[in-house]
């Protein structure tokens, strides 16, 4: 615990004693504790996962995350698909922001196959990733407010997200799963008049954000519920593998777009959004400001991107595409943190192993289990949303 925040010190006097093997000495039969399952069929859970809470009064003494409800075995399925057959299924791993799967997979394949995607494709990729980021954050803001009973925010932000999905639709032809970033480039260029409609959408997003700021962030009750709750110590950031806004809200400037610029991010002008005292409120605020950064980035990309040039690099016949033995790791900064693909090839036409590193993997399991202790039951849902966890990227 830091010096400047003494009121975050938890009271552990009621806490059960630890047994020799490190587990807690909880005797359910004593009637002092209650097992409470939050999820998977529970509106306060982020997606299809569950938390097994042991509560004492209103206070959580132990929380265990249970995942695996969405396990489809992607990493196994990809081992028996050719490189191009993997491309349509990767985006199914993560629903709110599927484009990062496509980008990371495409970039990993390109790197191992020695292909360089054309510059114009890189710009369009970055555009899509930023649009997806705005979508994902809009979903988050609605969820965060909804977890505290402020449903109206969810209505507004989902409407703005729907507008952004319209732009996706005219660019890629699909609402959720775009399948646009292929190994080698992108499928298509921007349609006619896209910039103008994009600008209108961005204005709508900004005005929604202004309403959200007025109703949510200036709201006394919202502040009362979130300030000082769910604090992340900056010292935990590295040991728990915290990335993205969760880390940035703690004051650690972890942003892959700045640290290891990929695509064309080195040509764009932006600063990672930082916060202090990573409680639920700060994390929500960091994400709100991050949307503004993304809105600005989309404008910059549209202003700077080349309008002519190839969209696809020359790719060998995808039916007989063999990639020599190698391994690589490609990462990108998605709205929840560092998203990465670890790809191993063995010279055949199929990947040897694909491993997806989703940011929720660390956030929702080890970090959540630590943070949930000593929390009020009422705050569990709000905390889970504020970590922006998303279960499919944990279990794939």
């Amino acid at each position, binding site marked *: 615990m830091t010096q400047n925040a003494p009121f975050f010190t938890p009271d552990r006097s009621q806490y059960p004693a630890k047994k020799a093997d490190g587990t807690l000495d909880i005797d359910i039969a004593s009637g002092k504790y209650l097992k409470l399952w939050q999820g*998977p*069929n*529970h*509106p306060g859970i982020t*997606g*299809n996962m569950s938390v097994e809470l042991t509560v004492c009064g209103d206070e959580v003494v132990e929380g265990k995350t249970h995942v*695996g*409800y*969405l*396990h*489809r*075995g992607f990493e*196994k*399925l990809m081992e*028996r698909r050719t490189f191009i057959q993997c491309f*349509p*299924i990767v985006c*199914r791993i993560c*629903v*709110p922001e599927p484009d990062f799967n496509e980008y990371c997979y495409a970039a990993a394949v390109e790197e191992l196959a020695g292909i360089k995607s054309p510059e114009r494709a890189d710009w369009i990729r970055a555009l899509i990733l930023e649009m997806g980021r705005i979508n994902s954050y809009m*979903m988050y803001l*609605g969820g965060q407010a909804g977890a505290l009973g402020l449903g109206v925010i*969810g*209505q507004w932000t*989902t*409407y703005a*997200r*729907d507008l952004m*999905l319209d732009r996706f639709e005219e660019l890629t032809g699909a*609402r*959720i*799963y775009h399948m646009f970033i292929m190994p080698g480039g992108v499928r298509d260029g921007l349609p006619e008049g896209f910039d103008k409609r994009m600008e209108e959408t961005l204005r709508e997003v900004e005005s929604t954000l202004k309403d959200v700021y007025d109703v949510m962030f200036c709201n006394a009750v919202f502040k009362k519920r979130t300030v000082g709750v769910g604090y992340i110590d900056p010292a935990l950031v590295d040991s728990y593998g915290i990335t993205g806004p969760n880390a940035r809200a703690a004051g650690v400037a972890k942003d892959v777009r700045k640290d290891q610029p990929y695509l064309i991010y080195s040509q764009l002008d932006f600063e990672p959004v930082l916060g202090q005292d990573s409680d639920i409120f700060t994390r929500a605020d960091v994400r709100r400001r991050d949307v503004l950064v993304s809105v600005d980035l989309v404008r910059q990309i549209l202003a700077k991107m080349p309008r002519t040039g190839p969209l696809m690099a020359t790719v060998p016949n995808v039916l007989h595409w063999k990639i020599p033995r190698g391994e690589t790791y490609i990462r990108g900064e998605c709205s929840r943190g560092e998203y990465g693909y670890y790809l191993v090839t063995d010279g055949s036409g199929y990947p040897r192993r694909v491993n997806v590193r989703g940011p929720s993997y660390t956030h929702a399991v080890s970090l959540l289990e630590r943070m949930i202790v000593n929390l009020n039951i009422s705050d569990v849902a709000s905390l889970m949303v504020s970590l922006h966890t998303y279960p*499919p990227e944990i279990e794939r």
Partner: protein
Amino acid sequence: MKDELKIRVVKGPDGVEFEVEPLKDYYCEAAPTVMPAAYIKVVEDLFNWARSESIWILGFGTGCGAIEMRPLMTPRFDAYRFGVQWRPTPRQANLFVISGYLSTKTLKRAIRSYEQMQNPKYVIGLGSCTINGGMYWDSYNTIKRLDDYLPVDLYIAGCMPRPEALLAGFQDMKKLIRAGKAEGANLYAENFEWYKANQKRVIHDWDMPDYNW
């Protein structure tokens, strides 16, 4: 006193026999009963109309299709106009939207949730993965045919189906209910043994009562 409320000895899923007092313990292993339309046609028609105009969906996002539920609740699509609402508890829900692939782990929870819903209850299978496995046709962890495990009234195809498709699906569901054809709960009760056998074949650690209300 009803038979089902009397004290009796039951055999748990782990093979241990124990005594259950239904008024105190919450345990049920009785098979579901077929509940035919009990009233005269006019009343039953009125009820069917009410059932069709007031569809309460169980808010259980079992797969990726759940992401299109949010737009349905919000300004662009607004399913509340059509009497469709979301309820957080299975007791009060009438329609279970299986939103996408079901892993065996989720299937177990889905079965429990379904059985806790009240008769009449309906199931909509969303997405091609509930129809024939879809993208996950060779996956070791997802079921390929939803109607083997739960009585499905309606499938909505697509990966994933758009909200418009869902709205159209709800309208079709309404027509089914109004015509009195959506009797999934009775179908489930009639073919209970068959459904249970199918379910137990894919859920390897069956550690719950065979049927929980």
